[in-house]
């Protein structure tokens, strides 16, 4: 840590806090989709990391071609959304309501997507080209921090607020909330819950795709990344409580900060430090911080 020697301590702290928040923002994009899908459909989508990966690769390719981040994000959303739609309609519907086969099926899907990504995009780490990233850095006194990462934090906050508003203020949100509480009643009231499920699955995957494209500007997309991000997302939603979006937000920030400081101070135990809070939560509050009692 040469930063520790040359830069005064408060600046280092501020930098790590910002690192933690921006990584937490990325985690929130991932975990919110995962937790929303679980809340409604009771599926832990193990292909979520693969959706992130696919979104990242497509985002990088389109961003390199067009030089426009917005087009890249939209392309990634469309591609991953279509993939998720097919997975839901062609595969998951056949095992609806059977917890374990559903999860195992998504594991198989993750396997296939990750391997096909390797076939199409190769094994080299890929990043967003510099041209599409927001240039420059924020400078406050001695603190210098890239604008792009601050943009990621802003985006995650915006998406979080949007999700909360849609859930609490719109008709679609009301249908989803009703579906979480009681599927039978909502379908008896004339809502086709199957398509609500499909829609939610696609929205969850789209959030992963946004995370993948935006995240490719912070950390490389490469084979194996699907498992790593899935793991972080799982830890976040276990801590926050499965199905809870506020829980995902709190869990993301917590894990983001812990991870940033752990990587700076005790890099040898980097993974260990995110499992400690998870283990503690599991032991003392198995439903997570914001989870409803089963």
């Amino acid at each position, binding site marked *: 840590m040469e930063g520790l020697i040359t830069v005064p301590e408060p600046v280092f702290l501020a930098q790590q806090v910002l690192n933690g928040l921006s990584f937490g923002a990325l985690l929130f994009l991932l975990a919110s989709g995962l937790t929303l899908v679980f809340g409604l459909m*009771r599926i832990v989508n193990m292909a979520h990391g693969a959706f992130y990966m696919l979104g990242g690769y497509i985002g990088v390719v389109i961003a390199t071609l067009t030089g426009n981040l917005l087009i890249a994000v939209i392309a990634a959303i469309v591609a991953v959304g279509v993939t998720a739609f097919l997975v839901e309609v062609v595969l998951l519907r056949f095992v609806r309501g059977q917890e374990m086969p559903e999860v*195992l099926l998504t594991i198989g899907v993750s396997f296939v997507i990750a*391997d096909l990504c390797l076939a199409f995009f190769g094994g080299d780490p890929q990043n967003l080209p510099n041209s599409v990233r927001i240039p420059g850095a924020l400078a406050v006194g001695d603190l210098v921090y890239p604008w792009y990462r601050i943009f990621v934090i802003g985006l995650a906050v915006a998406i979080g607020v949007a999700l909360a508003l849609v859930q609490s203020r719109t008709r679609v949100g009301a249908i989803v909330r009703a579906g979480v509480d009681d599927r039978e009643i909502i379908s008896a009231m004339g809502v086709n819950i199957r398509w609500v499920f499909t829609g939610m699955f696609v929205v969850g995957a789209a959030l992963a795709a946004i995370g993948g494209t935006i995240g490719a500007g912070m950390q490389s997309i490469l084979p194996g990344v699907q498992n790593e991000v899935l*793991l972080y997302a799982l830890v976040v939603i276990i801590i926050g409580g499965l199905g809870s979006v506020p829980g995902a937000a709190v869990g993301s920030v917590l894990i983001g900060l812990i991870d940033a400081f752990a990587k700076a101070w005790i890099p*040898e135990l980097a*993974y260990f430090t995110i499992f400690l809070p998870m283990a503690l939560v599991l032991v003392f509050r198995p439903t997570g911080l914001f989870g409803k009692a089963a």
Partner: protein
Amino acid sequence: MSNRIVETRTVRTFGPPRRDRVQLTNMALLALLLVAAIALPYLGASGFMVSLASTILIAATLASSVNFLAGNGGMVSLGHAGIAAASAYGAGWASQQGMDPGMQVLVALGMTLLASFLYGLLSMRTSGIYFLMVTLAVGMLIYGLAFRLSSVTGGENGISGIERFEWLDSYWTYYYFVLGVFVLATAALWIVSNSPFGASLRGIRDSESRMRSLGYSVRSYKLGAFMISGSVAGLAGLLAVWHTHFVSPSSAGVDRSVHLIVMVILGGVGTLLGPLIGAAVVVMVENLLSSYVDRWPTLLGLIFILVILFARAGIAGSAGKLFRRLRARSKAASSPEGDAPGGAAAPPGDRHAVHQGKDPQ
């Protein structure tokens, strides 16, 4: 509430097939396979083939440990590769410190018990999806330690040059050793599955609340089951590291654990021969087919998806079903197929009740 229904259904779809005559057929098949396996090095199989057979047997041992938990306890673990890797790293570390193979075994055993206890402790409160996620997370923790704690584990390069006992040096003696361990481990797991302990586990799988109200300590049963399963997994880890003389972080990775699940589901959850069949298919796809087909993981993934969609009972389970159906058809007219009542699934508490009922006092 809807969660409860889901859980019960899951259990039904993944439970083992009824065990009566099937078991006998299994034993006969197993004896036949055993003879074939013993004869393998004498049938002109090349060193490569015998070594591949060892790989299959090691994978099958590991898959059996996953199968034990999934079949009896309904606990699908996505982190068993981590236990095997902990054991393998234990042996590797001991070998690096210049210890002899005997000490390697001891260190590996210690690591195995430690890892299994950690897994069990964290997962014993959970079931179903939560169990899967917790085991996945602990597995990744071990992967992370193997990867980052490079002062002990050698980081990405792993530890190489791990030597087994001298009397196991040649590839075919080692093959027989692996075969012996596999047979013993399978037999041990089979005995435990058919003991009152196994019956209680199946009771917990089918209804945790019922077993709790009967006075069973569900958590200690789960922990115990994990320790048993973990011990077998650790054994497989030691066998693997002696086989390849090498251990690296990828042996603890999620992909390995997923492969194990694929083996178990492919072969048939809760069946005796399932893990061996599944391991044979997966290892052969991985080692033989991979030289012809670049995209073998895709192929494996597709096979896995198809099995879950269409042949939930796996290869061994489906074969058993087919066998029973044929049998039932051949004597369709004579008598309706009757299952042995109660039998294996009755918890020891029931036996007690019967006993007390008979008592004149």
